[in-house]
C-alpha cells in the first residue's frame, strides 16, 4: 500500500520531463523505458500523472483499456523516482501501483494479459500457467537437494528462473557455484510458489498478500532462516514487503561474501571484456550496485567496462512489472531491451553480464532481434562465475 494518497499530490506534477531522462541527462537516450518505446507524451511518468488526474479525479476523460495499457506499460523501474526534482517524486512508483489497485478494485478495463497473469499465479503458483510439479525440473541431474531443516540457505529460484528455458541457465549455474563453494542450501522444488513481486506491482494487493502468506508459512514450516534469491524481483519482495523475519540476500551479495571470506576461491579465468547491466530491483530499488561489480572484478582475465548509463542511471531492460510476460511495453524493435543491447555492444564488450533472470531473457531476445548474437552474448553473473571456476 502506498504511504501517501496519490490524490493529494498528483496535481503537483509540472510535466517538466526530468522523469524521461537519466539523472545525468545521458546523451545515449531517454531513460524511461515506456517513453523510450512509445514516445508519445502519454507514455511517460508525467503523462501518466496527468491522465490519472484527468480520469480519476477531474473526470475530464474516461478510464479506457488504452489508458490501462499506458498504465501497465510502466515497468516500475524507478528511474522517475531518481530523476524527479520535486519532493513528491519519491512517491511516483507507489502512486502508479496505488492507481493499479484502484482500477482493479473498481473493475475498470484492464489488459487481458494482466488478468491472465493474476489467474496463472493464483491457479498455478507461477506466471506461465505451467504445472506446479514442473517447477523444480530445471534442477534435475544437478544433485541439488530439497531444502531441509538445518540447511543454511533456502535457494529461492522464482518463476522466471524455474520455467523460462533461457533463465534456467542462471538457476543451474548458481546451483553449481554454490555446490562448489560448499554452501549449505536447498530448494523448494515443486513446493516453491510465486514470490508475488510482480503481482504487487500490478496492483493485485489481495493476491500478493495471499502469495506472501503462503510463502511465509512454507518458509516457517521448512525452518528457513536465510534466503538467497536468483532474482532481484524476489529479493525485493522478500526484503521490503514480507514480514522481515528472514535474512534475505541477492545471490551476488552471497557470492561477494563467499569470495571475501575465502570460501569461494576463484582460480580460473574468464578472458573477456564484460559490461554489466544493473537490474532495477537490485540497483535503484535496493541500492545494491557494488556486489555484482565486486564479484566480476575478482575474476581473472575479465575486463569490466561500463555503459554510459549505469548504476542509478541504468536503463531498464523493459521487462519489469510483468512486461516480460504481458509484452505491453516489451514489443517491437523500438523496445528498451533493443536499445540497451546496442548500448552494451558499443562499449566494445563481448559479454553483457546480468544479475536477473528477467533481464537475461529480455536482453537475450534483444541481442537476437538486433542481429548482434555473433558480436555479444548475454550471460548471468552466475554463468560467468561457473565458467571461470571450470576454466
Amino acid at each position, binding site marked *: 500500500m502506498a504511504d501517501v494518497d496519490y490524490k493529494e499530490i498528483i*496535481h503537483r506534477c509540472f510535466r517538466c520531463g526530468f522523469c524521461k531522462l537519466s539523472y545525468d541527462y545521458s546523451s545515449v537516450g531517454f531513460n524511461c523505458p515506456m517513453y523510450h518505446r512509445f*514516445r508519445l507524451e502519454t507514455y511517460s511518468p508525467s503523462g501518466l500523472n496527468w*491522465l490519472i488526474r484527468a480520469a480519476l479525479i477531474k473526470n475530464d476523460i*474516461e478510464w479506457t483499456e*488504452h*489508458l490501462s495499457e499506458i498504465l501497465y506499460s510502466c515497468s516500475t523501474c524507478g528511474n522517475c523516482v531518481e530523476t524527479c526534482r520535486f519532493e513528491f517524486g519519491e512517491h511516483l512508483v507507489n502512486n502508479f501501483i496505488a492507481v493499479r489497485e484502484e482500477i482493479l478494485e473498481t473493475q475498470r478495463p484492464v489488459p487481458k494479459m494482466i488478468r491472465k497473469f493474476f489467474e496463472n499465479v493464483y491457479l498455478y503458483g507461477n506466471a506461465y500457467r505451467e504445472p506446479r510439479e514442473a517447477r523444480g525440473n530445471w534442477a534435475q541431474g544437478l544433485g541439488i537437494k530439497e531444502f531441509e531443516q538445518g540447511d543454511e540457505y533456502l535457494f529461492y529460484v522464482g518463476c522466471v528462473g524455474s520455467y523460462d528455458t533461457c533463465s534456467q541457465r542462471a538457476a543451474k549455474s548458481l546451483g553449481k557455484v554454490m555446490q562448489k563453494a560448499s554452501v549449505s542450501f536447498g530448494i523448494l522444488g515443486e513446493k516453491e510458489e510465486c514470490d508475488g513481486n510482480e503481482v504487487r506491482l500490478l496492483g493485485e494487493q489481495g493476491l500478493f498478500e495471499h502469495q506472501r502468506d503462503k510463502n511465509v508459512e512454507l518458509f516457517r514450516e521448512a525452518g528457513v532462516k536465510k534466503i538467497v534469491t536468483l532474482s532481484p524481483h524476489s529479493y525485493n519482495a522478500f526484503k521490503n514487503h514480507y514480514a522481515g523475519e528472514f535474512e534475505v540476500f541477492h545471490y551476488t551479495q552471497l557470492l561477494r561474501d563467499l569470495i571475501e571470506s575465502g570460501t569461494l576461491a576463484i582460480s580460473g579465468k574468464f578472458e573477456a571484456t564484460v559490461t554489466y547491466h544493473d537490474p532495477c530491483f537490485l540497483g535503484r530499488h535496493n541500492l545494491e550496485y557494488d556486489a555484482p561489480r565486486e564479484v566480476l572484478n575478482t575474476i581473472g582475465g575479465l575486463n569490466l567496462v561500463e555503459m554510459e548509463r549505469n548504476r542509478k542511471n541504468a536503463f531498464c531492460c523493459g521487462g519489469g512489472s510483468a512486461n516480460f510476460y504481458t509484452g505491453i511495453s516489451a514489443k517491437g524493435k523500438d523496445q528498451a531491451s533493443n536499445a540497451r543491447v546496442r548500448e552494451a555492444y558499443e562499449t566494445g564488450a563481448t559479454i553483457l553480464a546480468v544479475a536477473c533472470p528477467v533481464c537475461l531473457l529480455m536482453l537475450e531476445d534483444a541481442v537476437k532481434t538486433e542481429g548482434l548474437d555473433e558480436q555479444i552474448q548475454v550471460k548471468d553473473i552466475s554463468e560467468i562465475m561457473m565458467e571461470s571456476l571450470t576454466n
Partner: protein
Amino acid sequence: MGNDSVYNALVEIVGEDYASNQPEELYMYSVDSGTEGPRKVDYVAMPKTTEQVRDILLLANEHRVPITPMGANLTLNGLGLPVNGGIVLDMKRMDRIIELNKLSRYVVVEPGVTQGRLGTYIEKNCPELEHSRPEAPPMATVVGNIVIRGHGFLAVKYGNNASQINGMEVVLPTGEICKTGSFSVSQLPFSKGPLPDLSALFCGWNGTTGVITKLSLKLFPKRKTMDIVGYAVHDVELVPDLLWRITQTDMVDNLFVVGFVFGDSGESPQYVTVCFTGDIDEELEHKKAVFQKIAEEFDRAAPGKVEFLYPVTEMLTSRFIEKPPYVSPALAADFEHGGGYRYCGAILTVDKMPQAWRTGIELARKHGTNFLSGTQIMGYCHSVNFCFVYPFNRADEESMERVRRAMRDTNEAVLAMDGIPWKAEVEAQKLISRKMDPNSYNLIQRIKETLDPNGIMNPGNWSK
C-alpha cells in the same frame, strides 16, 4: 483503423505506433503545464524524417487541417497547443545530432534534440565547447527554444539563441523542403552567409511559417572553471546602474537577477548573480576582485545598499555550476505545492527594471498571488528579459484564474513600459498586434499568407 481518412493517412506516413486519435493522446496534447487549454486536438503524429513531415503538410493542405509543431511544449504559454484543432506534430522522434564541427564551432541537430541531451553530447565529444543552454528543463528542445527566440546561459555575451543560428532546413507549409544560410548554397551549414536572412522567417513566428527539420547552431569556447559572486541590492533603483557597471567589465558569462515577495514576508533584496569563467585560478581570483571593487564603489555612493556576496549559497552553486544542476527554476512550480506557474517574460530596456519590479508586486497584490521575478540580462544590457512569475495551485481553479488575470494585466503593463511580452500567448499576441505599427502588422500577415496560402499553420496565432 476506422474510416477516418486523415488518421489513416497519418498511420500510412508515420506508422501505427506514432499516430493517434485516441482520447488519451488528444487530452495530453490539449493541455500544457501553464494555465492555457484544454484546446481541441484532433490527431497527434510523430514524424521521424523530413519526408514524413513534408507528407503530413501535404496531407494537411489537402484536407485543410491545421498543423501545430511541438517540441517539449514548455513555453508555459500554450504555444505548442493548437488554437483551432487539427494535428499536433510532436517533433521529438526526429532526434539525431547530425554533426558537431569543432573547428568551425557549430552543431547540426534535428528538431527533437533536447537541451539536456545536446549539452551532455557536447561535453562528452568536445568538452572545449558549449552551447548557450537555457534554464528550461532539459527536455526542452533546441529548436523550440530558437523558434521563440529564447536565451541561454551565454546570453549576456552573445544575445538570444536565435542570433546563433547558422542555417536551417525547413519544410514550408506547402511542402517544399527549403534551406537557409550557407546551407542553401553549399553542404556546409557554417554561416548565415551574405544572404537575405531567411532563418528569421521561422523565429518568433510560433511555428506558423514552416516546420524546422534541421538546425545549425553556433557553439562557443568553454573555459575550464567557473565561479559565482553575488550582490544583494537593497534598493531596486540601483540595479540598472549596477548591471551596466558589471557588464562594462566584459568579464561576465552569465548575469541574472532574482527577487521575490511571498505572502506577508515583504520584499526580498534584488539578488544579482554573476557567473564568470577562467582557465586558471588566478584569473578567477582577479575577476572576483574586480567584482568586489564594484560593490565597494556602490557602497561608497550609497552606504549599506549593495552587499557583496561570496561565496554564494549552495542553491546558486547547484543551479549554475553543478552538472547536472539539481536546482532548476522548474522548482518554482512547487512553491505552493500546486504544480504550476505562469510567467510573462518581458523584453525591456534595463532602466525599466525597477518599474517592472514594482508593477509585479502591485499586480500580485491585486490578484492575490505570490510573485517572483527572474531577469536574464541579454547582450551587454542591450535588453533584459524580466520575468514576472506567478505560481498557482493546479488543484485550485480559483488560483489558476487569479494567475490568468495577473498575466493579462502584466502583458498590458509591459506594453505600457515600451516593452514586449516574450513568447506571447495568443491573447498577448493580440495586444502586441494592436499596438504594432499597422504596416508592420500587415507585412507579417502578407508573409504568412504567402508562405501558408491555405492557413494551415496553427491559425489563430499573430492575429488581431
